């Protein structure tokens, strides 16, 4: 059985102005790479990886360096009747925290299909964690958590209590303010290969979710 459906990939942040709950950029790597550029590149890599799936339609919320409000990003899923919505982000904190984590919106707060969201999030999070761990055992499995995230509002994604076809989660791929992660994803000799492996893992998770 082949994968069938529509997936919306949402590269977090973008542009130079904060807009409707979406900041232009958050994390910055030690070598100066901005999170907004990494999210766009990874979304495009996943889109390319999914091009081999004839029955999977891929839509990006942005294809250039522009910002969209959180509601506008989720509305792309609503307007396209998407089956999956994946918001891609990178983390950053104190230069030493590590790990891969995914988030879904809590059930008691504008989310009608939290269990389905968690299944999708677990597929993506585990796939990305395994891909990174194969290259760097220093990463950490932070699992799937609940958080009140603006981009995951069911009312913006088009889900209702009676009809909730869109599964949604937000992925924090790694903490890019850690020098080892910066080398792994941006500056090291294997960085292009590692990025492709992570994109492939996300593609596999999406295909599994749509099969």
């Amino acid at each position, binding site marked *: 059985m082949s994968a069938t459906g529509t997936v919306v990939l949402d590269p977090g942040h973008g542009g130079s102005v904060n807009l409707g709950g*979406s900041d232009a950029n*958050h994390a910055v790597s030690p070598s*100066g790479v901005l999170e907004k550029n990494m999210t766009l590149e990874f979304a495009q890599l996943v889109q390319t990886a999914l091009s081999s799936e004839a029955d999977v339609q891929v839509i990006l919320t942005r294809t250039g360096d522009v910002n969209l409000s959180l509601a506008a990003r989720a509305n792309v899923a609503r307007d396209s009747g998407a089956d999956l919505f994946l918001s891609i982000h990178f983390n950053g904190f104190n230069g030493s925290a590590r790990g891969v984590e995914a988030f879904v919106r809590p059930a008691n707060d504008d989310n009608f299909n939290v269990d389905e969201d968690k299944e999708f999030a677990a597929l993506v999070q585990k796939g990305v964690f395994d891909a990174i761990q194969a290259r760097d055992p220093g990463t950490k499995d932070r699992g799937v958590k609940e958080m009140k*995230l603006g981009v995951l509002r069911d009312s913006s994604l088009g889900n209702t209590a009676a009809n909730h076809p869109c599964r949604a989660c937000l992925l924090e791929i790694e903490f890019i303010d850690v020098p080892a992660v910066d080398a792994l994803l941006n500056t090291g000799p294997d960085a292009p290969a590692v990025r492709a492996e992570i994109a492939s893992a996300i593609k596999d998770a999406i295909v599994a979710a749509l099969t």
Partner: protein
Amino acid sequence: MRSSAAAGYLVFVLLLTSACTARKASTPYVPALANASPGSPTARGTLLGDYQWAAAAPSLQEAASRWKRFLAVHAPPQGEYEDNFQKLHVETARLELLRVYYLLGKKSEGDALLKHLDPSRQH
């Protein structure tokens, strides 16, 4: 005579207390949690830039002012976050401000913020 001595003593105590408070306010600030990430400082006006600015406050008094300003600008309304990066930084800012309030002896402000951090109020 005795009441005059008592009043003098009271003034002395008040002046001493005032002087101690002033010294506390100017005490150099060293963050307990808000360690700066590696890399270049980021521009003010961004979440990370404002966070770095608050964490680099030269004194306790200035730290209280800067963390309050950071939270006024970057803490989301109704606690609806954009991503975990924002949540990590906003929650750390609240803990830093709480610590600074107690170090400054501002118990009522500290207790008010502590109630805001009550886990039973959060999802």
